[in-house]
């Protein structure tokens, strides 16, 4: 994880606004402003100017604090608008 953060930082990416997806297990989103929609199949959040939707089944919020959100469950994909 540290290596990934180091590489992203070297390329000039803002790691405080990153999304990490582990298919079928979880999705970790940094910089979440608010959760706009919450259901076991669909969790939508506002992250900066983006609207991120996590799609899957049996999903729940594993932890949520200070803009860091972890979605647990059978995560199948995300859409960014």
């Amino acid at each position, binding site marked *: 994880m540290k290596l990934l953060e180091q590489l992203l930082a070297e390329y000039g990416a803002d790691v405080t606004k990153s999304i990490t997806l582990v298919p079928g297990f979880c999705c970790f989103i940094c910089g979440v402003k*608010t*959760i*706009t*929609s*919450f*259901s*076991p199949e669909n969790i939508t959040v506002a992250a900066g100017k983006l609207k991120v939707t996590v799609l899957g089944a049996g999903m*729940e*919020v*594993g*932890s*949520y*604090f*200070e803009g860091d959100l972890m979605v*647990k469950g059978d995560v199948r994909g995300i859409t960014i608008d």
Partner: protein
Amino acid sequence: MTDLAQISVISSAEPALKKLQKSKIPVYNCKKQGAEFIFCVKDKDIKKVFAIFAKPCYNVGVRRKSTKNRFLSGLLMRIGLVAGALVFAVSAYLSGFLVLKIEVTGSGGYLKDAVRGIIAEEGAGEWKPFSALDKPVASGRILSLPGVTFCNIQKRGSVLVVRVEAEPALGNGVVPRPLVADVSGTLRKITAICGTAAAEEGAPVKEGDVLIYAGVQSGEKWVEGIAAGFAWIECKKTCEYFAADGSENSIREAYASLNLQAENIISKTHSLQSEEGGVRIIMEIVYLHKISINLT
């Protein structure tokens, strides 16, 4: 053991999460169950959560206390049981740690009072920790008791078992009384292997005085035991011997009649006094008299 309590609130998830984030409360394991929104917070945040959802419409409640709280309240509900278990554990620990009884076994059992005295002097005793006993010194002292051939000190549970083996013949020969002076004189040397010396070297002693007591002082307690040791008493003796003449042979015969060991005599002087039909030899002898008790 986690400190996460599960809370349920009648609300939709989105505004509830917004309120919680606004109050900077970390939330975990959020899920929807019908009209209920269920989530977990740390114990320290429960009051804040109730304050946020204070309005009756939210119908907030704790669904499940944290493992830590459940454990503590379980303990409180069974305080008697917990106290009993603690008392039992402490008693079990102390009984293994303390000596509650001292047993002297083996053929040297007749020395039990002396052995107990030594054990007490070396730090162990009833209701005292076993670790306080200086085992090597105690073993050494027990082995120096008259006739003792083997000594083993062991702790079995809360019982301190001292196995003492002694020469079988001595068991019956032990005299359970103090060493008493059988002559008057000056005490020149005293050695108490067992028991307590009652007089100092150089002190005058009279016939019948106790020289070694059969016991030892242990703190404020007197522990009965046996006396074992010896003493040398310097004695003076004036004797008369009647001989036909004052020749050297007569004088030698006169000294021989005293039946004293040559090495015990410190000094001897004599004077001759003429009598009708012979000579009276008056001898003044200073000698060492040895007495002992319970020594092989």
